[in-house]
């Protein structure tokens, strides 16, 4: 017994090392679990205060290009308002104007913090629970999609961006309507990979890729990027395409959080095994 104690005392640093590493790794991997949410919330609140100061300065500087961006944004909104709506009648024939109900609502927010050089990138936005943000909402920007809301504190939320190894978004080719899933292979933050497109169709370089609208996260028809090349070899059943994002993630500031007003109803009808 004494010897064991002696040995333990001699190698105390080893035991402590293992202990501390375990604590750190548990913290790291339970990042998305509930217990660390409180700690996370506290940290986000403190950080948010600091970061929104820096964000304010940057916002002012970028005001001019912001106005241009907003005009484009408005034009786009006018053009595709119908995608944000839900048809109430499918009878055909004459459809009165009031036959649409609002399906998606958009909340404005600013990016206060962004990581782009990690293997898993997150954005922090200055909208939180008090503005009605909830986990699982989609986030889009004037020129593309950003990701899905991951964690929410009172005034801030973090977004699991499309530049994340776990990110999977349902998108479709604008011209043919074929649907596939968009993932991020890592390294470059302007490129993504689109898979599950059947290989019998013709792919043109530069073809637009938009969100499919098959999930309750993003409305359909939101631009994502364009096809830059084919990664899969000839003869494979499905294409793997290289996509260039239409949004430059280095200069994203103004974003919209998408709120699906029919989410609960949609979820109840969805098959339990269905993924977004």
């Amino acid at each position, binding site marked *: 017994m004494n010897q064991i104690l002696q040995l333990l005392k001699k190698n*105390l*640093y080893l035991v402590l*090392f293992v202990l*501390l590493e375990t604590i750190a*790794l548990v913290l*790291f991997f339970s990042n998305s679990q509930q217990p660390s949410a409180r700690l996370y919330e506290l940290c986000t609140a403190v950080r948010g205060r600091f970061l929104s100061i820096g964000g304010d300065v940057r916002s002012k500087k970028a005001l001019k290009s912001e106005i241009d961006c907003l005009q484009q944004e408005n034009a786009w909104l006018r053009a595709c308002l119908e995608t944000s709506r839900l048809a109430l009648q499918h009878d055909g024939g004459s459809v009165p104007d009031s036959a649409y109900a609002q399906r998606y609502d958009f909340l404005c927010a600013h990016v206060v913090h962004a990581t782009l050089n990690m*293997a898993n990138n997150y954005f*922090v936005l200055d909208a939180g629970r008090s503005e009605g943000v909830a986990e699982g909402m989609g986030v889009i920007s004037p020129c593309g999609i950003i990701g899905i809301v991951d964690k929410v504190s009172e005034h801030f939320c973090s977004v699991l961006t499309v530049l994340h190894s776990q990110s999977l978004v349902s998108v479709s080719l604008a011209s043919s309507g074929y649907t596939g899933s968009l993932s991020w292979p890592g*390294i470059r933050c302007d490129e993504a990979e689109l898979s599950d497109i059947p290989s019998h169709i013709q792919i043109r370089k530069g073809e637009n890729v938009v969100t499919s609208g098959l999930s309750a996260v993003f409305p359909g028809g939101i631009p994502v990027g364009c096809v830059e090349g084919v990664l899969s070899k000839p003869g494979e059943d499905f294409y793997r395409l290289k996509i260039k994002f239409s949004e430059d993630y*280095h200069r994203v500031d103004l974003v919209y959080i998408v709120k699906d007003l029919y989410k609960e109803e949609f979820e109840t009808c969805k098959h339990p095994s269905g993924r977004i």
Partner: protein
Amino acid sequence: MQASLWSNIIRFVFLVAVQGLVLEHIRLPGNLHWMVYPLFVVLLPLQMPAVTLLLSSFAAGFCVDCLCDMPGLNAAAATLAAFVRIVYFRLRPTKDVLHDSDLAGTPSPSSMGWGGFLSYSAWVVFFFHAGYFFLEAFSFRNFFYTLYLVLGSSLLCIVSLVVAVTFFRAGNNKR
């Protein structure tokens, strides 16, 4: 001892704050990360007990984690760095590396010679970055890219270390 304690506390606060509040927001070309707080682990006093060393490194990493919202990542990497430091000095008996009179101070080129100091800090810094990037990626999918990040960022960190050490030695033999 007292002066050494205070200089280490000041170094802790300064490096953690610079890392968490400033450097985290600087994007370098080539996706490199500029880490300065491993300098705290490298420059802790030589006679410091292993247990204290591990605990203070963990604390430094944990504080940076809180500022960068990546719970556990920096803490794990910093603890690994402290462990490598302990193992390094166990494998290389202190006599070879140091003159006896300098045992009390922080590791420095003047006590270990530039060669010894650089090889020591290179090991610590390399393992810190290896732990950090491989844990962060948590896959070997882009192995060589991650390795490039590790080596590039380690080099950047060592350059910062050399600059800091030269600068503060030139002023006074404190820090």
